[in-house]
């Protein structure tokens, strides 16, 4: 039965082809595969919307996210204040928009920097092998044997709290995973025949590994960047919620959520924390969908 349905499917495709209606697939195969994944496209749309609202925050709201207005405390949502105001009269909607700028900067920025460092080290040491590989592997093992939040909080307590320190600490704790993944790809790719050919041409190690092998490992690297962006945004929210992330004077998603620690706020002023919680969840969800879509699209074993 399954065969006959498959036959019918192929008959249809054949008919389309004969009628000249089937366009030869143009463009990147991975890209078209990504666009056929509904969840990934949904993720990309939501991601773009939230990113654009954060970037163009000044155009979307006329309220200053930092301006305290004591005559306008804890107002429920209205036409003037879409998400209401917080306990010092600041507009929550504009805080969510401006907070997105810093939260996304922390998440995406840390993930990209961790990727650059991890990939650069992993590609080189993985290709070269020998003692340099062993040393890099041991260092990454040390970093990765700490539970991430413990290591981050420990470093925060040593280095102090600031936006720069937080990004620095995230990069320091996040490069290991990226390094491991790149190294693993490198170990299998360096055995390929084209690499031997390049070596026999006398190309330098750096040229071979960064220019010729690395592009073949790009798929998993991009997947890893999206996934660690999601993880860093969650980590920032968690740390700032605890009051130990980005300093409280800067609006970030985690800092806005911070007020919900008080039972009174949690119960009576839902607009101060619920919308921002939903925005974080949606954003992280969209990033995860994009990551999953990229994984399916770039995985050669699933090429259809």
């Amino acid at each position: 039965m399954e065969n006959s349905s498959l036959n019918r499917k192929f008959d249809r495709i054949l008919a389309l082809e004969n009628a000249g209606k089937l366009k030869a697939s143009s463009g990147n195969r991975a890209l078209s595969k990504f666009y056929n994944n509904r969840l990934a496209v949904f993720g990309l749309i939501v991601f773009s919307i939230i990113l654009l609202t954060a970037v163009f925050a000044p155009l979307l709201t006329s309220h200053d996210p930092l301006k305290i207005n004591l005559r306008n405390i804890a107002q429920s949502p209205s036409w003037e204040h879409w998400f209401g105001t917080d306990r010092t009269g600041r507009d929550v909607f504009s805080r969510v928009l401006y907070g997105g700028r810093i939260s996304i900067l922390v998440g995406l920025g840390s993930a990209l920097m961790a990727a650059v460092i991890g990939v650069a080290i992993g590609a080189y040491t993985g290709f070269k092998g020998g003692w340099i590989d062993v040393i890099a592997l041991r260092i990454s093992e040390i970093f990765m044997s700490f539970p991430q939040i413990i290591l981050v909080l420990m470093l925060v307590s040593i280095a102090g709290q600031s936006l720069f320190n937080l990004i620095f600490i995230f990069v320091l704790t996040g490069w290991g995973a990226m390094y491991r993944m790149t190294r693993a790809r490198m170990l299998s790719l360096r055995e390929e025949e084209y690499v031997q050919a390049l070596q026999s041409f006398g190309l330098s190690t750096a040229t071979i590994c960064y220019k010729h092998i690395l592009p073949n490992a790009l798929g998993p690297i991009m997947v890893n960047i999206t996934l660690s962006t999601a993880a860093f945004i969650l980590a920032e929210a968690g740390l700032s919620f605890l009051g130990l992330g980005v300093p409280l004077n800067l609006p970030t998603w985690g800092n806005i959520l911070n007020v919900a620690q008080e039972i009174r706020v949690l119960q009576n002023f839902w607009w101060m924390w619920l919308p921002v919680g939903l925005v974080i969840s949606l954003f992280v969800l969209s990033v995860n969908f994009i990551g999953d879509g990229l994984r399916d699209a770039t995985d050669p074993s699933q090429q259809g």
Partner: protein
Amino acid sequence: MLTYVIRRILILIPMLLIISFLVYWGLELTPGDAVSHLINPEAAGRMSAEQLNDLRESYGLNKSFIERYGIWLINVLQGNFGHSLAGGVPIADIFLDRLPATLELSFVALFFSTVMGSILGTISALKRGSAVDSGLTVVGMLGVSIPELFFGLVALLIFALELGWLPVGGRLLPSYTSYWDHVPNIVLPALVLSLMMTAGVMRYSRSSMLDALSREFITTARSKGLPEWRINLLHGFRVALTPVVVLIGFRLPVLIGGTVIIEQVFQWPGIGNEFISSVRGADYPLVMMIALFSVFAVLLASLIIDVLTALIDPRVRLS
């Protein structure tokens, strides 16, 4: 088998030494030393430089860095973890006081996420490609995307504040009479903590089950004419479950990270809660000792998991 275990332990020791060295180094980088923490600033101001120096000498603070590290390490190995700056309580006492609460919460969450995750993952694998499967995939995605603290806050609002079914936080109420009295207290934090892990286990057990079902012994079982449920449960599920149980060890870092935040949301008096207050209060000796302890727990868990895997699967030992 024994040589395998010994070899694994031998790899672990230099690792722990390096990490303890880094932690001690971190401790040295923090402002102040034992003397400046023990004496209040006014008294220190009245003391002469010589007196302060004598005091430092008596605590061994004038020795070289390596020597001090050696002394510290020997103390730690003997169970003398130093003192918390807040009140000068021995850190070992704090551990003994707080650890049971964290272990209790972790075990309940671990148990719940393993059971739920493997059941949902198996269902998902058996109904591959169906609406149930894609629905569960999206739910799993939600599980790893919603910040657990946000999920915790919403759960707290609905079940504790609005409906009043469960207590708002804490572990043991002052009026408790038996151990079971605090079961309502653990329900919310354990459920929220297991949410994220359930999603992970579900994903893993789905692919593990799919893998098991495609093996040849399943075809054999089917050709013997066994009923489908027997094939799935007795042959597929059993094989698929082994890696899922092994995964428990790898979830430990996630679990520790989760308890730090969830204990804060629900005011659960565990190590995570203590860790946050020590970071806030710049109680460096306590911060470092908890960090060291968590690394030790993670490495020990991975050792146990490796040994267990080697016991189950003889191929691991040989490679």
